[in-house]
């Protein structure tokens, strides 16, 4: 196999359970050494997609090719596609070392070699000395690393991960993200990571695949998806976005009677996205046009605070500000503010030429 062919190719893959269509004809190539995140709301078909790759589900239609070989109905145990489960699925009646060596044992690897590999992988994941611990004597983060070691010990070409961090405390999630990205780089293998958390997907992956209602909605690098969502679904799902519609005339968009700057778009009705961190908040009416909105609530989110507002016509608006700025603004529910943005900030979702 040359490196030109993708490691995995989904072509027109469908999966239905009776009348319910979980996956509706997806096309997706995954390259060697890539970290791909499949992201979407629950029930979007992302886990089904992953399970088909692992051979735990058989596609109803279409083909899945792994390494140039059609693998639609290859049984799970004949594939080398280890999966890190959401529940981790560690074997409770086996100790740490026995869990980790499981894959090798199933491949009838001799005992001495198994022990050497177990020692290597436990060390790699910082689990030295835990060989004989029972699974229920481990912390959440330790279990996570045992699950990783168990999946990676057979040195597969690709690792599948099904929301593996969803059960962890927030501070552990960030640390495990570091462990995962480091491992992926060191091993140079493909990671296919299913999650509903955009912070996980965007922090780790090379490419993000957004799924909704059993279809792939957008594929792109995290930044592309974040700054240029393809449609309303992605814009609503990803990040803290403001979605506004109005009519464009002469480089300005009319949103509920307020004319706001919008560069490089010809006249006609349009739907635009403005990321929360591109919004400016003013405590009093600025000299330039701005949307008047009542403060609703605030939410601390990493780099700053997301403030929620209610704009004209029940429009939900959000703006991200640094914490110090929030103190300056002293928001209270119902207090009016003015929101605006720079002319080059909006991303256009839909646009029709011509006047209405």
């Amino acid at each position, binding site marked *: 196999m040359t490196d030109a062919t993708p490691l995995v190719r989904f072509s027109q893959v469908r999966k239905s359970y009776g009348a319910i269509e979980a996956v509706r004809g997806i096309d997706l190539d995954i390259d060697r050494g890539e970290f791909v995140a499949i992201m979407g709301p629950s029930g979007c078909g992302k886990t089904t997609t992953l399970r088909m790759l*692992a051979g735990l589900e058989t596609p109803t239609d279409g083909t899945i090719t792994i390494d140039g070989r059609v693998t639609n109905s290859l049984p*799970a145990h004949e594939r080398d596609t*280890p999966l890190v489960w*959401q529940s981790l699925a560690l*074997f409770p*009646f086996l100790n740490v070392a026995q869990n980790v060596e*499981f894959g090798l044992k*199933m491949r009838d690897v001799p005992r001495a070699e198994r022990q050497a590999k177990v020692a290597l992988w436990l060390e790699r994941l910082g689990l030295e000395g835990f060989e004989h611990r029972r699974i229920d004597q481990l912390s959440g983060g330790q279990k996570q690393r045992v699950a990783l070691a*168990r999946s990676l010990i057979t040195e597969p070409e690709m690792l599948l991960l099904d929301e593996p961090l969803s059960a962890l405390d927030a501070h552990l999630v960030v640390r495990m993200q570091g462990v995962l990205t480091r491992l992926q780089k060191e091993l140079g293998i493909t990671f296919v990571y299913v999650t509903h958390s955009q912070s996980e997907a965007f922090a780790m992956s090379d490419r993000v695949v957004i799924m909704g209602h059993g279809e792939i909605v957008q594929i792109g690098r995290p930044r592309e998806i974040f700054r240029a969502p393809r449609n309303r679904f992605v814009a609503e799902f990803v990040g803290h976005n403001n979605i506004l519609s109005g009519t464009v005339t002469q480089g300005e968009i009319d949103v509920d009677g307020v004319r706001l700057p919008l560069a490089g778009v010809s006249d006609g009705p349009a739907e635009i996205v403005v990321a929360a961190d591109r919004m400016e908040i003013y405590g009093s009416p600025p000299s330039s046009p701005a949307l008047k909105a009542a403060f609703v609530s605030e939410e601390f989110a990493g780099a700053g605070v997301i403030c929620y507002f209610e704009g004209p016509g029940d429009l939900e608006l959000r703006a991200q500000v640094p914490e110090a700025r929030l103190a300056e603004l002293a928001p209270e529910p119902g207090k009016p503010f003015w929101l605006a943005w720079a002319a080059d900030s909006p991303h256009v979702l839909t646009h029709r030429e011509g006047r209405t």
Partner: protein
Amino acid sequence: MRLPILFFRLYLLALFCFVFAPIVTSTVFSFNSDRFPTMPLGHFTTQWYQTAFARPEVWEAFRNSVTVALSAATLSTALGFATAYTDFRFGFRFKSAYLALALLPPTIPLVIMGLAMLAWLGQLGLSGSITGIIIAHTVMAAPFAMAICRMRLQQMDASLEAAAWNLGASPWRAMRVVVVPFCLPAVISAFCLTAAVSFDEFIVAWFVSGLNKTVPVMILEILQGNVDPQINAIGTVVFVTSITLVVAAQLLLLGKTAR
């Protein structure tokens, strides 16, 4: 608040006394030297045990009972586990009917069961044989084994088995190295319990046993002849065997669920 608790404790105590009094009485009289079970007691003796176990037909009956209990326990545990696993792994139409059928035997009146077994085993030419009793007891005990295995399987993460496949175990191997080890306490417990069910069982065994008597059937035959303290001795041995099996089953189950 305190008074009702005290009341319930006393009530529970009374209940246990009521349940176990006859058994304790029988055990006490099995060590009593008097010919008839009357008060006051005579002196302590093991002569009833000696005379009872000096009789070859008592040994014969125990041999039959143990053979039947071990065979029926093995078969019904295997059947019960398989039935419970089918319920756990697969979804199919008429599943509730399948479960109802699998759990039906204990609801059938024993006399009816005995008669039906007699007629059916007669057709097969197995009435009066040890095999016949084994078949009858397997039918009666399998639902208990199934219930116990099902309880354990419900505690199993469904992805555990799939994780084994994912790591290269064929379905049969995954069954051997993951599902069975996970269920092992329940399987042993089911074995003990079904052995106890079979060892104690009288009515159906009486219908189908013929000349190959099990212990309970033999006890009745001795009893029909005369009242003899040897029965107390045999009964005590039967009771101790059964209670040991049942307690072992319970300990295994509780030990695993508590974790």
